[in-house]
């Protein structure tokens, strides 16, 4: 029997397969520096999502930034990065050498800055799509955009006219109603949602009566959050017509396929990249067998199926 076809697309971006990386979980430029061109020759993902780019350079949060938890980890990295100019001048061209479609993640705390980020990033031919990280408070309203359906809708509506390239909204799981936030993003004109971002979490210093992380709390990721992510992907994909990029504790082809069955069109590998630099490749390599085992002849069949 022929191997199931893995080719697919996400809001018009043609992909050789359904495996992306979660933003901020695989620094392709650092990986190339460490492992050499083998990373480009065997790039682990069918589409690369950059770490989140902000208007200005950011140093990131003070240590400690990591804590290992049962089957996962908490991070409070704080979006260190070169800022928009540094990213466009130094990083983007080198990311384009990888040869897979590029999605650039951007974040700002006001629509004015989001406008600049989206306009300047979208203007670059190397960029296939833009992911909006909306986990930051709006300085004007004080509300976290990703927690409010109306805020999410207003932001996407304001940015929508700036580009014809796909706009993807990264949803936070730290809400009671992710389906309503997704619906707001859809009404505003989003082309897809990606989910889940990390789950708000804290750890207590084992040697002192204080929180462990440098900024007190962080985001939980890894297999520990997978059941939460599956429930939210299922709820959101039932509520909106735009495609869902599903992620949250994917470690292998079986767990990736769980997300497809829950309603995701494509998936992203995040924390597992830290444990295994080739995790994305191993998900892809395992998918044909995982599909066949569940009776699917193609990825499209699994994407079209519904859970009973």
């Amino acid at each position, binding site marked *: 029997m022929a191997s199931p076809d893995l080719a697919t697309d996400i809001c018009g971006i043609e992909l050789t397969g359904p495996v992306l990386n979660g933003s901020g979980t695989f620094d392709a430029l*650092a990986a190339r520096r*460490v492992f050499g061109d083998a990373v480009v020759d065997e790039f682990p993902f069918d589409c690369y999502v950059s770490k989140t780019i902000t208007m200005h350079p950011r140093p990131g949060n003070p240590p400690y*930034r990591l804590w290992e*938890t049962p089957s996962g980890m908490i991070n409070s990295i704080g979006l260190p990065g070169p800022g928009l100019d540094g990213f466009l001048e130094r990083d983007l061209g080198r990311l384009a050498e990888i040869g897979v479609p590029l999605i650039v993640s951007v974040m700002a705390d006001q629509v004015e800055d989001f406008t600049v980020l989206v306009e300047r990033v979208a203007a670059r031919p190397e960029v296939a799509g833009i992911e909006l990280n909306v986990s930051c408070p709006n300085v004007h309203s004080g509300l976290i955009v990703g927690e409010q359906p109306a805020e999410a809708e207003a932001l996407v509506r304001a940015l929508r006219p700036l580009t014809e390239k796909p706009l993807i909204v990264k949803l936070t799981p730290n809400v009671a109603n992710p389906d309503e936030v997704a619906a707001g993003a859809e009404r505003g004109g989003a082309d897809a949602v990606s989910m889940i971002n990390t789950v708000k979490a804290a750890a207590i210093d084992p040697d002192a009566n204080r929180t462990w992380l440098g900024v007190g709390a962080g985001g939980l990721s*890894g297999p*520990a959050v997978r059941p939460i992510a599956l429930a939210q992907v299922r709820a959101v994909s039932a509520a909106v017509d735009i495609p869902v990029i599903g992620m949250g504790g994917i470690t292998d082809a079986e767990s990736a396929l769980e997300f497809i069955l829950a309603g995701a069109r494509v998936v992203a590998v995040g924390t597992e990249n830290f444990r295994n630099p080739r995790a994305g490749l191993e998900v892809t390599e395992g998918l044909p067998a995982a599909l066949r085992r569940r009776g699917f002849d193609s990825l499209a069949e699994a994407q079209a199926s519904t859970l009973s």
Partner: protein
Amino acid sequence: MAADPSSRPERTRAPFGRRLCEVAESRPSGGYRIFTLIDETGPEPAPGQFFMLAAAEGWAGDGGRPYLPRAISHARFTRAAGGPMRLDFLVHDVGPGTSRLASMEPGEKCWLAGPFGGRFSLPRQLNPQAHGAILVGGGIGIAPMAVLRRELVDRGIPSRSLLGFRDREHSGGIDELFGCEETRLAFEDGSSGHQGYVTDLLLQLLEGDDAKSAAVYTCGPPAMLEAVRRICLEREVPVELALESPMACGYGACFGCAVPKADGGYLRLCIDGPVVRGDEIASAMAGEPAVG
């Protein structure tokens, strides 16, 4: 091996991905444990570099921890003619990860990725007046010092090793890794060698003319590293430190291993370190891992 002290040795590049290695040996050494992995395909690591390790079975076991691989510097590598490389690691059981690694039996398998990070400079690169090197190791931090010492021996560069431990329970690898005359010991409880801190021994060596021609290398607990760093900076003695930090990946992906730089901002220790110059960082105290 080339003996030209002016040529800057390159870091060894890691193969892409992780590889499954067999545990060849595991034995107690003082309060620590030394285990040996057979690395069939990897390149020879350089002094100061490290690997990410995770037992193939029983990782993310009861209670879901350990989950992340652990960053550990090799303590020695050997390669018999035509044979595979043997990598020795020195571990102290201080948490779920090091406990599992210390319990691995011969024949078990262990995931290995690396070698990662940069290497120590040679003494003449650190200090053009250097006649040799002073190596200051504390606790399990003696492991990368042992690798550096071997390289210096191979290159014909003299070195003296100062090793400090809290007590017998918190020591190991001394005879296996430093079986030489140029090694002095300090135990805080006085059970062997000098009673007190290893930094006492360093101060003795740096008295007089030694400071002008010294190049110091160190690895150990953060308080010791910071003391060594300050002693050296105050005397304008070039010093390189191998630091630790909580680290999920080892190859620049997680941004977890931030160490404050002297001029603001942060290093990513896995790719910008783990070896740093004493004047590059704001403090050696910031990155102490409590992950185990």
